[in-house]
């Protein structure tokens, strides 16, 4: 259960980034989590929501994009999603494939809104 620490790192990064936007507040933070990253998205969401309660970031939304494990075939260069741990190439059946993604634990974006505009309106655009 390290999602609390991960949620804390996300909030730290949001606060750091917001120093560049003193006239705005953050609406939504997007993160990418690979299915091989050993992070449970729902546990992360639970921790995130618990941590922002009654803080200045209480209205901050967390958007999680779960990224599948992708491999590239070393023979025919085909990129494909690995399902049921079958990492052989679906195009040429080669077993010589290499992992190219699926281990992400990254920020994707931050949505910010200037003070004085509607937060509800800001969210509805996404």
């Amino acid at each position, binding site marked *: 259960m390290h999602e609390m620490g991960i949620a804390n790192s996300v909030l730290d990064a949001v606060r750091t980034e917001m120093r560049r936007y003193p006239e705005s507040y953050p609406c939504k933070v997007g993160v990418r989590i690979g299915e091989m990253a050993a992070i449970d998205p729902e546990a992360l969401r639970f921790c995130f929501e618990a941590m922002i309660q009654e803080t200045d970031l209480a209205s901050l939304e967390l958007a999680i994009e779960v990224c599948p494990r992708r491999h590239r075939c070393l023979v025919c260069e085909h990129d494909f999603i690995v399902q049921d741990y079958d990492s052989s190439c679906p195009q040429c059946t080669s077993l010589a494939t290499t992992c190219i993604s699926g281990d992400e*634990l990254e*920020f994707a974006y931050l949505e910010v809104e200037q003070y004085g505009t509607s937060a509800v309106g800001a969210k509805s655009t996404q």
Partner: protein
Amino acid sequence: MERVPLERKVLSENDRIAAELRGRFLEHGVLCLNLISSPGSGKTSLLERTLETLPRHDRVAVLTGDIQTENDADRLKRFHFPVKQITTGGTCHLDARMIERHLADWKLEDLDLLFIENVGNLVCPSSYDLGEAAKVVVLSVTEGEDKPLKYPSIFFKSDLLVLSKIDLLPYVPFDIEAAAENARKVHPGMEIVKVSCLTGNGMHEWMMWLEQRRRAHKSLVETAS
């Protein structure tokens, strides 16, 4: 509203310290291995056997992590190599900052091999880079042979699987070939050694793997310098 790209890792601070540690390990020619398993799979026993086998003059040290107690460090200190306990006080994994802090009063130039025994946990340690050259995952035969499928991340990220407690194979319904097959499903080509720390069976293969990694690391260090 404005959407700004935020292209960086969530654990960028941990990764920054881990990269610094990795640089220092390379500079001083230290091979660092991060040992990970469930609680009770035999990481400490494997280290006891290993330290017992290594020559007394070998430049080896151990950092051992647990939530509480100095018990593991006490067990490992008997072999007269430098050993330090990291008690996390509740945290379920080690992070790079803990390693940095506990290495502060050790001279890396006096070491060739550093073992880090992570907190017993197959999930969280997988997310935290400690600057190691390789992760080693230990799975005992009293666990399920489907563990690599249930906890794929750590098997995917580890260079070596140590199947431990193989002296118990006659008494437990553990299909060792299925376990190896499951590990290689998650991590094609994964190296596997089978050991019993009780009988010493398989220790030779583990020590050979270690020796081979030490030699490979040495030539890497020589190339880098």
